[in-house]
């Protein structure tokens, strides 16, 4: 079987020209770029060439991959300096006549070669307040009793397209160039997650204070790199981060709202409570379903 795969890669390459791949090899102890000259076939993606490299010249090259269809988010790397999925970057889109560099994600610790340890993201995921639905009404307890309107589904559906490739986290200069910010900054992937929950009609957790105080939303300076690299074309900045920033402004930086709270003698806590209560359309019949409440944040390997 293995021989067959090797033969397939060797044979398929015979129809096209040579490319020089400059691949970073090394681990936490150090490393450097190693050049490999090999053939690439028309229509191939970078991951195809990396696989051919493993099959023919560098069997010990470490590279994480899985679906080869842009859906698992495993093969993130920096190709010619740009964070991208290797399986979604066609060779013909890269300049010819010069080596194509493939490096590991810069923002995360190296394991070996092109494989990085992205567990930082899983730690951040644990800090995101999970889905917290309001109590169900008696009508909603019946099967199909609550129907979410399509326009509400569509709004958060965009963020659910995320494949957790963490390219947005990698490119974000807040942590890419400032390691120390990792303790106080959630990053674009998790702002999208918060936006998804914040825009869910049933969720009652007010995330605005935690976004500002603990997840470092204010550190984002909207340079839109996360949007530029997203392979799912999620408009992270326009549809998640900026709407969240505006919601934080509503809560913390709006002098008119502040004056209103003062005049009406409403504290932030009571305003938050009122905001959550106003979302309850009917009298609660039961306590929140504990089986639904506190759904762990999904993480992808």
């Amino acid at each position, binding site marked *: 079987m293995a021989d067959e795969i090797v033969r397939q890669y060797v044979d398929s390459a015979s129809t096209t020209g040579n490319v020089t791949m400059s691949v970073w090899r090394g*681990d936490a102890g150090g490393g450097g770029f190693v050049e490999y000259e090999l053939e690439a076939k028309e229509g191939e993606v970078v991951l195809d060439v990396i696989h051919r490299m493993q099959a023919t010249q560098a069997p010990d090259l470490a590279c994480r991959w899985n679906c080869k269809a842009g859906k698992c988010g495993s093969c993130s790397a920096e190709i010619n300096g740009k964070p991208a999925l290797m399986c979604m970057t066609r060779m013909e889109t890269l300049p010819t006549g010069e080596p194509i560099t493939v490096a590991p994600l810069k923002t995360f610790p*190296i394991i070996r070669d092109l494989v990085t340890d992205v567990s930082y993201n899983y730690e951040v995921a644990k800090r995101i307040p*999970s889905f917290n639905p309001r109590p169900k009404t008696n009508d909603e307890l019946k099967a199909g009793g609550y129907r979410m309107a399509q326009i509400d589904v569509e709004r958060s559906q965009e963020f659910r397209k995320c494949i957790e490739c963490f390219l947005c986290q990698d490119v974000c*200069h807040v942590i890419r160039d400032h390691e120390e910010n990792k303790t106080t900054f959630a990053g674009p992937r998790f702002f999208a997650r918060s936006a998804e929950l914040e825009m869910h*009609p049933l969720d009652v957790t007010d995330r605005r204070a935690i976004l500002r105080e603990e997840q470092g939303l204010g*550190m984002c300076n909207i340079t839109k790199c996360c949007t*530029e690299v997203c392979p799912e074309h999620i408009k992270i900045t326009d549809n998640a981060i900026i709407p969240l920033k505006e919601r934080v402004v509503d809560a913390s930086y709006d002098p008119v709202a502040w004056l209103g709270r003062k005049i009406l003698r409403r504290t932030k806590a009571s305003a938050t409570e009122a905001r959550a209560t106003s979302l309850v359309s009917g009298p609660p019949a039961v306590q929140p379903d504990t089986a639904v409440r506190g759904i762990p944040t999904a993480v992808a390997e």
Partner: protein
Amino acid sequence: MTTLEDAKVTPVVLGGVRGGPSVPTLRKDRWWIQPVFTVSVLAAFVAYATWAAFVNNNYFVGAAQHRDLISPFYSPCLTATCVPGSHPGSIITWWTISPALLILIFPLGFRLTCYYYRKAYYRSFWWAPPACAVSDAHGSYSGESKFPLFFQNIHRYFFYAGLVFNTILTIDAIVAFRQPGDGLGFSVGTAVLLINATLLWLYSLSCHACRHLCGGGVKQFSAAPIRHRIWKTLTPLNAKHMVFAWMSLVFVALTDVYVRLVASGAIHDYGFHF
């Protein structure tokens, strides 16, 4: 226990050694073109706007030329020093220098705190970062979370002020149909003022704060159908915010240039009257 409390117990632990080369960037494309373009255009605009604001002349084409055209840099002209005919009344009498300086604070504030321009100047002028996957030029970084940059959060108030100015400039464009001595008419100047007002409206209506205030802040769209409809209408405009930002910026300067050339007698404002 709420989920919010649950979320506070997991600290992020730093550690590990980064791989890859220690170079500012591995990008091979011409990533520097965008910052260079942004710096060039914004610097040219700031230089021109500063000169036009301080020069304090040739901003109004009045009855002597059978026209009623005012530069957007000087409208509304509210000080006692305004050219006769260019203002509704001398509301501010103690201001003796250029009236443009009173006005430009608001559009300047609107553009300075605009989400698009923030991206543009953080990248191009502040190099934080100069381009995606190109190293930040600063040793430490706190973004917009501390003084003075948290003032970026007042963007919506400049947006409100911008609406007032847009209304005034729209009135100016309508008044430009008036040709003193000839009745009503239409000229190149009228078209210029109309296009300018239109672009400024498009820039304002495509603003992210506008999108939020009109409907984006709603938790449940299905419970607020009118606001959802407004939000849905504004969303395609919002996607073109950058385009409108540049077009309106360049055209507002061109409008001033045109009015200035006509007012100084360098060119004639061609048109017709009904």
